[in-house]
């Protein structure tokens, strides 16, 4: 049965949700995170699909010729949802932080994993080499240095990414900011 209340609340929700979804998708597009930030992508998708769903509810509220069970309660709850949707939309200035926050969290986890790997494979090996040489255990020292060097090169190669996937380094990419062996007294 036609319900102005149902049409209004669901219409508001539909518009708000689709706008929120478009803001999230646009942010992901601009920051090139469409394929690398699945959490934000899913968030945008939830808003979009729910927006379409409530748009359909608005259509039903406008065109149906018989009442739904618990119709009053349904429209009342839709009023609550509409209020929250509009409130959420007013927070759109903080959406970039939402996108950045999720990406930063993933970045931080990745960096921590890499740090632990570097510690395990390089720092530990160098510490062992240093201790061995200081104790006069030259053979063990040399072996530890060799292991650390091999491990370091492997980690660097992994961090640089697959050369066959468009990550190849080209002219200019290897330009250093300072010399590897700065002159005595020079500040790097």
């Amino acid at each position, binding site marked *: 049965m036609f319900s102005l209340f149902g049409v209004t609340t669901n219409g508001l929700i539909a518009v708000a949700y689709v706008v929120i979804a478009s803001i999230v998708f646009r942010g992901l597009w601009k920051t090139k995170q469409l394929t690398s930030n699945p959490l934000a992508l899913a968030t945008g998708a939830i808003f979009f699909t729910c927006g379409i769903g409530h748009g359909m509810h608005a259509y039903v509220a406008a065109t149906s010729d018989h009442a739904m069970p618990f119709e009053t309660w349904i429209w009342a709850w839709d009023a609550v949802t509409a209020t929250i949707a509009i409130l959420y939309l007013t927070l759109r200035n903080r959406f970039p932080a939402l996108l950045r926050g999720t990406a930063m969290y993933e970045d931080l986890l990745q960096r921590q994993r890499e740090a*632990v790997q570097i*510690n*395990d494979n390089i*720092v*530990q090996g*160098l*510490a*062992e080499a*240093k*201790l*061995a040489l*200081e*104790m006069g*255990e030259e053979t*063990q020292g040399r*072996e*530890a240095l060799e292991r650390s060097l091999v491990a370091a090169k492997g980690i660097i190669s992994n961090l640089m990414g697959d050369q066959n996937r468009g990550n190849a380094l080209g002219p200019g990419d290897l330009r250093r900011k300072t010399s590897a062996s700065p002159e005595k007294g020079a500040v790097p």
Partner: protein
Amino acid sequence: MISRIRTLLVDDAAPLRRLLSLMLERNGAFAVVGEAGNGEEGIALADQLHPDLVLLDLSMPVMDGLEALPRIKTASGHGVVVVLSGFETNRMADQAKALGAAGYVEKGLPPSETVARILAAFQHAPASLLGTLGSGGLDSAGPVQGALKARRGGAGAFPLNAA
């Protein structure tokens, strides 16, 4: 009667454990009584051996040092746990100490300094430990006794044999 600090090494790098064992034995204050390659093995050996001191690495397979630390302390009874790690002190020391470590020593220091810092942390061992190191614990002969005297008297330096 001269006693040495019964020490359990918990570190997944076997070559490093060998060096640490050599360093500690050369110093004379320590007797390495066991070695473990991960936190889980460390807990089992601490329970079995009741060492005076546990040198504990952080990054290990199966169970890492932070996970194992409280359980090793409990399992060893009166044992002192000193973390020996490649992570910088300002990054991990607070967490380790909050979990019960008596000290935190970074890997890569010269042998004499490493031993000095381990002994310095050991000086904070509970008083009940003194009784387990023999009734002649205050005999001035030997580095352990010197360390114990320094801990009781609050003196600064204590005799060390350079590694």
